[in-house]
């Protein structure tokens, strides 16, 4: 089975962030290609996701190197083989500051067509520079997307073409699209990209094996627009979200009634809306915090890709949401399948990130002479020294450049995980009556809502009192301590085919589980 995920707009990119972390926890499929669509090429959220994807892919490749540093196929850590391409962000209208007028070649149009265009788009919209996205105007985005050909020369579309070719060969292909209903790029891209895929499928005469799923994000956040913003500036206005959503839902209702574009649609939102502390029109300064509703979209995608998910003949629409109270609990996280408990896996990842970032990562960082002070300890001898021993140097090569790179990259990734969960815990409920009872974050991090790109500051080092609080890290769970983890890594058995640093990483990961 081949799986493809397309994140549209800023929301799509943010949902991919959640998806990457859930995949590293072992909730994802074996293989997944990820692409993004955003007119706002320099968007901070898209760039952040790109960096995260590259980090995941690079680290996974290093830790799945057969015979060298191998976690083994049985390991759930970085289970999903995510692939992407540096050019996998499809920009519907490339170039410097394209406008709708330029795209449709307005000046060359006949007068009656010009008139029609003038009826549909006012002059401001026609001349709006689109390099920072469609600014909450799906009517512009839809025109732009439909005006652009989905040809095989584009890195993004070539993957879709390949997928449909694979489906013709008998392989099952699942494509999942994530977008918001209330923005610009997402709202315009969600139905139109699915339509384009179906059109390619029709063009290639592929009648089966291609399944399209989607996560449609209803309004789940808003923000205060600064008073000093120019009245003429076009941007996504929060006070229009509900009206836009209502109109869009009516449109989807008719679309789904007459046309089966999607096989499964997952609909989610958040009430009351999470408040974004800082407003940015777009561009590289737009760094919106991860929000809990996006986890629903990511888990919807993983459910769609799961092999236990049998896709029905009829179109299915699923609604995902939290419990009715103001408390957000672990029980609000749905499972990916009957065999994949999302809560357990995410908790496992958080504990792994914590213990690696503050305990084991620092211990393994540096030259061999520095690391050697642990050489008398059982975990080090069994998991590190024995598996990084070089016959040439007659000693462990844990201190060499390649191994140190892996250790550093894992630490960076763990910091991403901790930052992600901390930011989500605070940002989802900031300035509201809601409470997020998932993890305790105060003892290892500082949350600064007014900051733009770095709202979460992780502590460099933890005191012994802070380390003791690890057992309270996860709310509503058994009290695993750091001492339990040390005990587990000393006893947990290795798996066949595991090699090098892969052994230690997998054992530490499993040691942080139930």
């Amino acid at each position: 089975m081949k799986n493809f995920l397309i994140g549209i707009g800023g929301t799509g990119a943010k949902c991919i962030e959640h998806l990457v972390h859930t995949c590293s926890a072992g909730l994802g499929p074996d293989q997944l290609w990820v692409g993004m669509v955003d007119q706002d090429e320099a968007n901070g959220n898209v760039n952040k996701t790109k960096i995260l994807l590259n980090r995941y892919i690079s680290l996974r490749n290093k830790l799945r190197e057969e015979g060298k540093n191998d976690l083994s196929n049985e390991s759930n850590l970085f289970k999903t083989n995510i692939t992407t391409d540096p050019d996998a962000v499809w920009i519907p209208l490339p170039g410097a500051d394209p406008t709708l007028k330029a795209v449709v070649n307005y000046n060359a149009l006949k007068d009656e067509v010009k008139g029609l265009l003038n009826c549909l788009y006012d002059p401001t919209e026609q001349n709006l520079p689109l390099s920072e996205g469609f600014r909450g105007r799906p009517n512009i985005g839809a025109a732009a997307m439909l005006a652009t050909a989905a040809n095989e020369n584009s890195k993004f579309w070539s993957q879709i073409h390949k997928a449909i070719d694979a489906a013709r060969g008998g392989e099952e292909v699942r494509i999942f699209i994530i977008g918001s209903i209330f923005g610009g790029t997402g709202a315009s891209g969600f139905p139109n990209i699915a339509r384009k895929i179906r059109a390619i499928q029709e063009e290639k005469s592929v009648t089966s094996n291609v399944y399209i799923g989607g996560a449609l994000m209803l309004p789940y956040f808003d923000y205060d627009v600064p008073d000093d913003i120019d009245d003429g500036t076009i941007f996504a206005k929060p006070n229009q979200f509900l009206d836009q959503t209502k109109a869009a839902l009516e449109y989807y209702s008719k679309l789904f009634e007459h046309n089966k574009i999607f096989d499964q649609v997952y609909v989610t939102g958040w009430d009351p809306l999470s408040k974004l502390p800082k407003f940015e029109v777009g561009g590289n300064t737009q760094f919106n915090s991860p929000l809990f509703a996006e986890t629903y979209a990511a888990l919807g995608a993983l459910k769609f890709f799961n092999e236990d998910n049998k896709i029905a003949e009829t179109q299915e629409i699923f609604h995902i949401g939290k419990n009715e109270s103001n408390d957000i609990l672990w029980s609000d996280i749905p499972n990916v399948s009957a065999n994949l408990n999302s809560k357990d896996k995410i908790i496992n990842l958080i504990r792994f990130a914590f213990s690696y970032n503050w305990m084991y990562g620092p211990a393994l960082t540096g030259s061999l002479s520095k690391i050697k002070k642990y050489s008398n300890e059982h975990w080090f001898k069994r998991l590190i020294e024995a598996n990084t021993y070089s016959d040439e140097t007659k000693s462990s090569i844990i201190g060499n450049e390649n191994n140190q790179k892996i250790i550093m990259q894992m630490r960076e990734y763990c910091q991403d995980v901790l930052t992600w969960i901390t930011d989500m815990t605070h940002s989802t409920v900031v300035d509201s009556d809601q409470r997020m009872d998932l993890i305790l974050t105060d003892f290892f991090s500082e949350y600064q809502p007014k900051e733009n790109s770095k709202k979460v500051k992780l502590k460099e080092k933890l005191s012994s009192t802070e380390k003791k609080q690890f057992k309270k890290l996860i709310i509503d769970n058994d009290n695993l301590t750091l001492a339990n983890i040390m005990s587990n890594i000393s006893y947990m058995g290795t798996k066949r085919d595991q090699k090098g640093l892969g052994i230690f990483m997998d054992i530490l990961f499993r040691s942080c589980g139930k």
Partner: protein
Amino acid sequence: MIINILKTLPWYFVGLAVFLVPSVLLIASLLAPLDVESFFSNQFFADKFMDLETILNDEQDPANATADFNLMFAWLNIYLLITSIAISLSWAIGSHFLNIDEPGKAKFFGITWTIISGILVGSLLIVNYTIFSWSNFFMAQQDITVRDMNTMVLISTIYYSLMYWLSCILGTARQARSAVLLANKLPARNFL
């Protein structure tokens, strides 16, 4: 945790058995009647440590005196054995509950182990001298010179300390091995 303890306990018993088996055989032979053939000569320790001259001067029957001595020596070993097993087993199980929560921390529990080892040695000495002071229960105490008594105390203390140490080496929680003298020299394997 329980599983980890169960994984280590067999190794604890291997270490213990090295000294436990000879000790149990000795106790059995000491408690056996004098005319029964046993693994150890049940006359050996009596001949070695009893003051035969005093026994004869006191007009005691040497056979009865030997039987008294064997009884005392058997109970001495039983108490020493119980003490060693109790303390070493407590350490073997307790070491799994030590707060070793990060790399490099195990060695600091070397102090704890040293204190427990000191308690063991102290307990062995107390048991020894208590038994030797129970003249009401063990008549043979009168037939041993102070020098021989001290020799017996020394030998038994060394023997049961070695039993404790070897069982600790093999039976300590893997993550706590740096706390036990020379335990970290053991090879680190999946099964050990």
